[in-house]
């Protein structure tokens, strides 16, 4: 083991780092080190403190205590710029690219050169050269909003390399990539380590960590449970245990439920997105009572638009949506709510809730105009409070009082508020978009249990998610969407088939090729 690298030159040493936010200790005396030329994974569930730790290293946060040594010199970065000067570059989960500007402009952003005049042609050439040197495929003149997600990520990497970074921090880089793009990324990372770069790979996905990383450090609720162990020496189960501290059930308990009538029937659905591009190109799918139907796909292939089109938030240009055999295409949202259509939106802070209003005001969003909460023109405060208290108890929502503004709630509790609101309206059709994104394992389990119990009660659930594992464990059937069309449907959880469909190969083609 030690033979592979004759010297373990440490490029980064973080010792006893403590970082606090009001009400929570995000990093509690964390130690972390990085060797030259390695891929070191930082593993932990959502909220464990991985991004926070790296944000400290990259100069975005200042730790309350602890020390950092980079390339043998003590470091106390007051800003991202100082960290970059020391050779540390971070590629964030949400890309820090200005969409309306070109690739070259984005790469040049924040630099002292060019001094005053932009001289774009000259720098475009420079950028293209450096990209070639590292084997990164990009179009230096394109505007960022025009290029694909995978290419945007390459631009982010290039941004750091252009600045001479030799330590790269990748924060959940595969969240937005399709399986083939993930392979490309891993190849890129490997070639970089061969050229002497050192990489920190932040992830909550065990499979990937085991695949790409040389060593792994596991964080749990802000503390290190295991530092710098070789990935060859450890099993996935061990890692999972270190991540969570208890036995993680890889598969959720799913009862057999008798499937009933078709509740949702979507036929050749077409719609435009906000930019005027056709994002739904003829979607066909159906969901029956008592089943969870998953919709897999890389983000940006029409999932959000589909959820909006089904609930009346987005105009449908062609095709039909039927709920319980009634044509509900393009009907007003309120009517949909009356018919038992329920949406759990992807963006819980900016769409699903009103941040400054109380929990009570938030949970009555669907039924404020129906009895018993509404009476004539009034909203009966006593009834509303009763309703809210009831939900608080049955869904175990942690909130000081029902009058607390929901912007003060944690992600998990916020999602509970939304779920409580939607579920208690006893929906016939539930459309859940990314319901567990950003939640910690305890909250994820809670949400998944709720979805399953709805399934048992006979609800029809359409689960739109980017987490393949979640789809596989919860869904009875899985559709795959690509560029606004359904590529196919599988009910045997065949990951290879799903992966191929996610990158654009329709099911018939896969099966044809499979036969050959």
């Amino acid at each position: 083991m030690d033979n592979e690298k004759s010297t373990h030159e440490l490029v980064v040493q973080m010792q006893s780092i403590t970082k606090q936010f009001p009400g929570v200790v995000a990093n509690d005396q964390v130690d972390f080190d990085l060797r030259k030329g390695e891929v070191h994974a930082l593993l932990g569930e959502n909220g464990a403190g991985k991004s926070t730790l790296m944000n400290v290293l990259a100069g975005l946060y200042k730790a309350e205590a602890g020390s950092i040594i980079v390339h043998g010199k003590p470091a106390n970065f007051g800003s991202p710029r100082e960290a970059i000067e020391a050779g540390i570059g971070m590629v964030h989960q949400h890309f820090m690219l200005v969409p309306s500007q070109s690739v070259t402009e984005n790469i040049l952003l924040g630099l002292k050169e060019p001094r005053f005049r932009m001289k774009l042609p000259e720098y475009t050439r420079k950028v293209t050269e450096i990209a070639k040197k590292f084997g990164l495929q990009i179009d230096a003149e394109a505007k960022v909003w025009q290029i694909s997600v995978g290419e945007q990520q390459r631009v982010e990497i290039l941004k750091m390399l252009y600045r001479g970074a030799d330590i790269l921090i990748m924060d959940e880089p595969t969240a937005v990539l399709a399986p083939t793009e993930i392979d490309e990324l891993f190849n890129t990372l490997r070639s970089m380590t061969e050229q002497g770069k050192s990489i920190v790979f932040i992830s909550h996905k065990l499979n990937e960590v085991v695949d790409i990383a040389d060593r792994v450090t596991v964080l749990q609720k802000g503390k290190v449970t295991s530092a710098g162990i070789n990935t060859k020496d450890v099993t996935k189960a061990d890692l999972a245990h270190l991540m969570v501290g208890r036995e993680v059930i890889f598969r959720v308990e799913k009862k057999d439920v008798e499937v009933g009538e078709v509740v949702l029937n979507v036929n050749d659905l077409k719609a435009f997105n906000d930019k005027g591009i056709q994002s739904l190109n003829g979607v066909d799918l159906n969901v029956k009572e008592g089943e969870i139907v998953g919709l897999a796909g890389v983000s940006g292939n029409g999932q959000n638009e589909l959820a909006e089109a089904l609930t009346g938030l987005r105009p449908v240009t062609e095709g039909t949506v039927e709920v319980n055999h009634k044509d509900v295409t393009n009907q007003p949202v309120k009517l949909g709510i009356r018919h038992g259509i329920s949406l759990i939106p992807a963006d819980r802070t900016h769409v699903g809730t009103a941040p400054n209003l109380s929990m009570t005001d938030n949970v009555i969003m669907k039924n404020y105009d129906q009895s018993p909460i509404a009476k004539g023109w009034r909203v009966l405060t006593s009834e509303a409070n009763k309703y809210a208290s009831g939900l608080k108890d049955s869904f175990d929502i942690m909130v000081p009082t029902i009058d607390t503004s929901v912007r003060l709630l944690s992600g998990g509790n916020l999602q509970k508020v939304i779920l409580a609101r939607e579920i208690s309206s006893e929906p016939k059709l539930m459309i859940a978009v990314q319901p567990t994104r950003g939640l910690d394992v305890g909250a994820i389990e809670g949400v998944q249990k709720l979805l399953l119990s709805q399934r048992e009660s006979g609800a029809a659930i359409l689960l739109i998610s980017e987490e393949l594992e979640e789809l596989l464990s919860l869904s009875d059937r899985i559709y795959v969407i690509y560029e606004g069309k359904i590529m196919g449907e599988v009910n045997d959880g065949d990951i290879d088939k799903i992966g191929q469909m996610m990158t654009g190969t329709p099911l018939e083609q896969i099966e044809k090729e499979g036969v050959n």
Partner: protein
Amino acid sequence: MDFILILASGIATGTVLLYATVGEIFAERSGILNLGVEGMMLIGAMSAYKAAAATNNAWIGLLVAMLAAGLVSQVHAFITITLQADQVISGLALNFLATGISLVLGEGLTSLRDVVPQLPKYSIPGLSQIPWLGGIFFDNHSIMVYIGYLFIPLAWYFINRTRPGLHLRSVGEYPAAADTLGIRVYFTRYLYVFVGGLLAGLAGATISLSISPGWFGGLTTAGQGWIAVGLVIFAQWNPFRAAFGGFTFGALRRLVLDLQGPVTIFGLSNPFHYNIHYGFFLKMIPYLFTIVFLVIGSREANRKRIGTPAALGLPYIRGQRGL
């Protein structure tokens, strides 16, 4: 009706609008909405007048005006950038504050009418002889007009073709990205709000020391600061369009005044001549046109989607948790 005169007048009054509008463009490009332009212009007009009278030098008056308005703008900057309060309300408050200060410090200035030096006027030799265009653009204009001609392309070039301009735009589009690359978001915003203030003060000084010399209390600016804010939308945050909008608007105001003169217009009996009360409807026209400009500008912004600085109006908080 002398069209040359109307258009020339348009250039003159339009110059005032142009400075104020481009100033606000700078502020908005950095992501901060500053509705206090009217108040800042008023402070500019007042302090220019007062300082010019005190020092008997119009240029010092101009300088003082710029600094005064720039200083006041920093109140808004502090409240919106550091305290992260709502930008709309803060801008309105700034207007009240600046107007109040102007009225208080401007007491008794009206009586100074003939004593205050004005900024010089020039005709450009050679260019002013060009038929039609010469009379409109180069004849007997305040020096501020000629400075304006140079200022517009320079402003455009700065914003779109220079490195600091790139930084400015990125702060207004995606401050988090700029921050991670070491650009000082707060400082940039403070700076360009200040620039907006400087230019609003300049615009105000242009009024009281040049285009409509004098101090008339709150009426000195007559809503032009607000029109400038509206023009920013019409201009799609582009200095050239801002100039076009400003000049057009200025011409419109003059046209409206002159419309009451002639007995016939294009051969038809002129209703505005015969009933002077109809003049009030004429006075409405500039404001109606602003609304029309707004509709046009908003529809374009909706269609193109790459007009409005994406982060406009939103406070920037580093490391905001919970995306």
